[in-house]
């Protein structure tokens, strides 16, 4: 009795609902497409979006902090382009990787400076940088495409690294565990929530709010640069529009995971479930020969529904309450 009610109460939460959607998605896919549940397909579906889900982990922190980073896809593109240009200029790929990660930190630092220390809303800053960083990526590559990276670098994006899993997926798993611990088990994670709930209260309780925000945006820059490098490795070539428009998918994954766009609320488990839902939905639709544009539209509808749904339920509840009171 007790146990079943606790399971029911878990199902009533956002994570429970997501789990239900996930199970339905996977079952439907498995029923329609026979090869869906093979390990290779599951690795494939991760691999095709691994750059986005890595960035989604950093974005979770930022949105819980009541900020947003629209520039992530441009930082990914900038890092990928910078890497390509450096390698073409004869810089060893290993050094180029380090330089690009540093470039990501600088890009994140620019965002952090304007948001945390000048005090301009992150929506404006990162929108400007979405244009600006993408602009610099185009300046670097103009209209050419660069390929011909070292073989070991391209192999990083595709070949198995541990067991059947490529390095990018292993990196995601490591970062996920790290993110889960930092967000839910450390003091720093608590300050992220407190600031997201009420930055004023956080300031008066002695939290260095600008510092926390700066750390988050610099981390977001580094993680985006890393993801951009994985993207370059997976495609084995880079163009100026690399990773263009990825921010929509990334933000969708985080918000669908139950992270409040107003900050202060969200769990890494919810984000993991929503990542799995988005990946399985896209993969299932692709296997059913549904075009990429329709897939994007379905994700768009999911994004709106993920906020509209709870709002409607809440409205219905308060309506019922007011009727009952009357």
């Amino acid at each position, binding site marked *: 009795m007790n146990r079943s009610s606790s399971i029911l109460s878990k199902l009533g939460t956002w994570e429970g609902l997501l789990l239900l959607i996930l199970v339905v998605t996977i079952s439907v896919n498995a029923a329609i497409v026979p090869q869906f549940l093979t390990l290779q397909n599951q690795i494939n579906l991760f691999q095709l979006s691994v750059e986005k889900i890595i960035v989604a982990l950093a974005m979770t922190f930022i949105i819980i902090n009541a900020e*947003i980073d629209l520039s992530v896809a441009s930082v990914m593109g900038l890092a990928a382009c910078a890497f390509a240009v450096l390698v073409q200029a004869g810089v060893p790929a290993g050094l180029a990787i380090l330089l690009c990660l540093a470039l990501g930190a600088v890009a994140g630092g620019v965002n952090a400076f*304007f948001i945390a220390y*000048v*005090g*301009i*809303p992150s*929506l*404006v*800053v990162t*929108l*400007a*940088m*979405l*244009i*600006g*960083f*993408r*602009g*610099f990526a*185009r*300046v670097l590559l*103009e*209209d050419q495409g660069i390929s011909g990276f070292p073989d070991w670098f391209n192999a990083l994006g595709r070949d198995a690294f541990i067991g059947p899993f490529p390095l990018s997926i292993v990196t995601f798993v490591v970062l996920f565990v790290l993110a889960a611990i930092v967000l839910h088990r450390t003091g720093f994670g608590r300050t992220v929530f407190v600031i997201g709930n009420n930055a004023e209260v956080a300031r008066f309780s002695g939290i260095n709010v600008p510092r926390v925000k700066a750390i988050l945006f610099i981390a977001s820059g580094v993680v985006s640069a890393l993801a951009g490098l994985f993207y370059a490795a997976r495609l084995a070539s880079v163009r*100026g529009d690399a990773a263009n428009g990825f921010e*929509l998918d990334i*933000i*969708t994954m985080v*918000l669908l995971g139950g992270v409040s*766009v*107003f900050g202060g609320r969200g769990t890494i488990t919810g984000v993991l479930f929503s990542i799995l839902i988005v990946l399985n939905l896209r993969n299932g639709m692709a296997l059913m020969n549904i075009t990429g*544009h*329709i897939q*994007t*539209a379905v*994700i*768009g*509808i999911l*994004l*709106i529904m993920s*906020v*509209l749904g709870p*709002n*409607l339920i809440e409205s219905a509840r308060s309506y019922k309450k007011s009727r009952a009171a009357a």
Partner: protein
Amino acid sequence: MKNLHPQTLRLIALAIVLVGTVLFFSSQIDNYFTPRMLNRIATSVAVILPIAIGQAMVVMTRNIDLSVGSIVGIVAYIVGDYLGTHAGLHPALALTMALALGALCGSINGLLVSYGRVPSIIVTLGTLALFRTFLVEYSGARTITTTSLPTWLVDLPQQTLFSIGPIEFRTIVVMALVAAAIFWMALSRLRMARKIYAVGSNPDAAVIAGINAPRVVFASFVLSGALAGLAGFIFLAKFGNITVVAGLGFELKSVAAVVVGGVNIFGGSGSIVGVLLGTVLVDTIDNSLTRWAVVSEFWRDALLGMLIMTAVTADTFMSRSFGRMKSKVALEKTDANGVGAKKQ
């Protein structure tokens, strides 16, 4: 100087920057002050200006509309497609169709934001993708070409309504300027339009004052959609060849023009004159860079991003120092009355 309103000061600063930009490029580019260059800038302003006005109204209510680029695409394509089969449609009806289609798209955004209480950034990020997908599916990978369009529409961008000296005013430019004039007068004179400022500067106070805030926000999204529809019509006339990528990225350009034009991103303040100056500045830089030999045209986006950051940073510091100035004046006044004795 002291009696000037900070908004006016900001407009003057913006105008000075604009004049400086034009002078700079005229020293760099040969034959800069030609009617041809002017027309190039004016016709690209004609497309962005209506979107920027709509975006400004949405931003003034503390929201954002990222779907405008997709609305421009939908309207340009569908109206072009319809005119291809119904060439006899009266121009005024074609324009009405464009406005109505845009308003319809805008009302979807408005419904979800105002009555579904979904944050505008989520709604319009979603509809940005949804509207574009609709266009891709609707078009079936076909392209609208000038050959299928009626001649009055194809000739429209070259048509000069009137000219002052050597400067010719193209019809599509006048259309955009008329829209700007209408909204400028409405926003500064009409009680209905003043509600936009009220809701943006303090939503709670606006509700207490008896303003139906959700309805004002809804209306701002519908107007933003309708103005994007107007831009779609002008876009169709200007380019004639419409593919599914029509209007891609216009949302960023409109937000840039609005922010550079001094509309407060926290809502509540901004002017159409500022938006006009912001749009002209952004488009002047955009069009001049393609002609400037020193840097490649690939610098356009990078410079645009930096321009927005500079404008916003300058704005932040200006409004902050004005705030300090105001509180200082207030303190001095209370001191004079012997009330604020606490201040040393």
